[in-house]
């Protein structure tokens, strides 16, 4: 299954090759033009009967992860995080390191040997290391180089009531939606752009937009979902199984009001459930996209994902399906001068 393949691939920001290769393989027979630009974004164009306005749909390929900074004499690997990871979740996790996909673990001092006050303190990155089982620096250096990337080891598992658990749902779910959309026979021509390095500061999106010059962009994301009972209703950004989340505002964009209303209207007309992303926290590629060159209109449509930026993010299949439906409906209706 596509989402399984995508989430299990390694694509830490700055090292998206594996994901990019999968994407290109998947879409190359369905698009009319395809290029990898100078910093690694995939830019594809799919023709349609109707192609005004100039539409770009994007999803970032990268995920948060780790990069190896040093190898010590005993063969343990020092590392740092790439993108926003809560350091407290790192302890006691398996990881996969480097091009040779070497398994390793982030261990911890046994609880027996910890003092009581130690247990109350979160472990800091400086105290952690990856153990690949090597006995010496030399042994480790045969397999790993400084600068190699590492990812959480986490299998794609379906569980509960039609839920999916995987790593990197932010944003392989967006990639998967965009690939499915490319394969779908839509009347509308559009640019499909898979960007690099969103998680470390929206790096890829600006240059890709500079190349494409869209009038309108739809950014696909897996977004924050925190619907636990102890959260106040108004502080819940999105909920699982309530449909695609349409963004209002975030740290990087005030999403175009008319385009938002247009999409809401399409959802209602087609009986597709939707929700608003009710927080202004976070940001995404839209921040760069809508401010590139002379500026353009953007929206963000997301699949709610619990526990993002961890090895065990969770989403609902029906949210995926409803997001896909909404996107198809937009592509079948959109016309120049609609909003």
């Amino acid at each position, binding site marked *: 299954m596509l989402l399984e393949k995508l989430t299990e691939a390694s694509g830490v*920001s700055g090292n998206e090759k594996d994901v990019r290769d999968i994407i290109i393989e998947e879409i190359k027979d369905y698009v009319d033009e395809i290029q990898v630009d100078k910093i690694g974004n995939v830019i594809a164009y799919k023709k349609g009967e109707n192609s005004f306005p100039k539409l770009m749909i994007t999803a970032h390929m990268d995920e948060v992860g780790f*990069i190896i900074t040093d190898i010590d004499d005993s063969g343990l690997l*020092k590392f740092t995080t790439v993108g926003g990871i809560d350091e407290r979740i790192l302890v006691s996790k398996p990881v996969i390191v480097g091009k040779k996909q070497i398994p390793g673990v982030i261990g911890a001092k046994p609880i027996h040997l910890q003092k009581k006050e130690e247990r109350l303190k979160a472990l800091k990155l*400086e105290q952690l290391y990856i153990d690949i089982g090597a006995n010496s620096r030399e042994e480790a250096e045969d397999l790993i180089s*400084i600068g190699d990337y590492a990812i959480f080891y986490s299998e794609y598992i379906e569980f509960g009531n039609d839920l999916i658990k995987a790593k990197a749902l932010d944003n392989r779910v967006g990639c998967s939606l965009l690939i499915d959309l490319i394969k779908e026979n839509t009347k509308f021509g559009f640019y499909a752009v898979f960007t690099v390095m969103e998680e*470390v500061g929206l790096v*890829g999106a600006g240059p890709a937009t500079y190349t494409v010059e869209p009038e309108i962009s739809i950014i696909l994301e897996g977004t924050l979902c925190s619907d636990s009972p102890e959260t106040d209703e108004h502080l819940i950004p999105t909920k699982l199984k309530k449909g695609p989340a349409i963004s209002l505002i975030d740290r990087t964009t005030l999403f175009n009001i008319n385009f938002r209303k247009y999409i809401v209207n399409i959802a209602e007309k087609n009986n597709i459930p939707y929700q608003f992303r009710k927080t202004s926290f976070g940001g995404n590629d839209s921040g760069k996209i809508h401010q590139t060159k002379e500026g353009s209109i953007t929206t963000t449509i997301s699949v709610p994902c619990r526990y993002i930026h961890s090895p065990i993010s969770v989403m609902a299949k029906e949210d995926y399906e409803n997001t896909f439906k909404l996107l198809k409906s937009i592509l079948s209706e959109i016309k120049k001068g609609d909003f």
Partner: protein
Amino acid sequence: MKTEDFLKILSDSHGVSGYEYKIKDTIISAFDKYSDEIRTDNLGNIIAIKKGTLSNNKDRIKIMLAAHMDEIGLIVTDIEDGGFIRFSTIGGIDPRTLLGQEVIVHGKKNLFGIIGAKPPHLQEEAERNNSVKIEDMSIDLGLDRKDIKNIVQIGDSITIKRELIKLQGNRVTGKALDDRAGVVTLYECIRKLNTINHHPDIYFVSTVQEEVGCRGAATSAYNINPDIGIAIDVGFGSTPELPKEDTLEMGKGPGITLGGNIHPGLREKLVSVAKDYNIPFQLEVDPGPTGTDARAIQITRQGIPTLCISIPLRYMHTSVEVVDLKDIENTAKLLTFFISSISNENLEGLLCY
């Protein structure tokens, strides 16, 4: 001019971010005779161009080398009765390094002044444990307010008065070596390029306003639109209190940065050039956009494949920064050999993802 002499001239000169025009002529006169063309752009970046010599092809590859010429410093915010000058910082300055410094206030003419400190006798015990805040410091020019007003205006820049000093071996200490050591490296490189043939056109850019957000690199990269951008900046030199994996050793060659800001194919080429020519180098990992001009260059226009090379430097952002001249020499060598290894024929292969 010897490397060390040029480094001394630049380190002793003054050009806080936004006020780089004060060292413009010095840099232009050094690069002028080795360049085919030299210009300054809208924000004041100095661009010296050395054209490729191995081909008449109009579509010669463009490589941009960026080293920033600005330095961190201070700025006059008010002139008070009694002739004291209040100030704020430009760029990341540790206020604790300012007490008891001699400074130069760059008004209509340069004025000598000092940042005074309260005598220890008058301090409470508890006071001594807290650092002094910048808003509580002032500069004593030894002049009356009305005399100062004729020479100094709010908004004038201030620098620490410091001259380059030679330490043991190849080490020197001075202010603004971040990143005038980089500018000197560019100078060494352009001189070496005058003795060999090379394919690409090289744009040596002394950038402005790096310390306040890589601003000059962004606009000059837009202007040049190079095929490859290389930032030459300084990296943290190792000292006992810093973790080994975050630092570079002094005298062991330039740091080559790895990470998302860096094009992987070009970086492999750079490493192989260093190995082929026996140039010592070290690796430096940076997970996202680096804190150097490479950050701005990479996202210019349609995206630019970028490299970052660091000269090890101790005590960054103080007025006693230390570099090893051997590292400057090796960085210049590495750049020169890298440039000579790039041609229209092999570039596409190197850039392929």
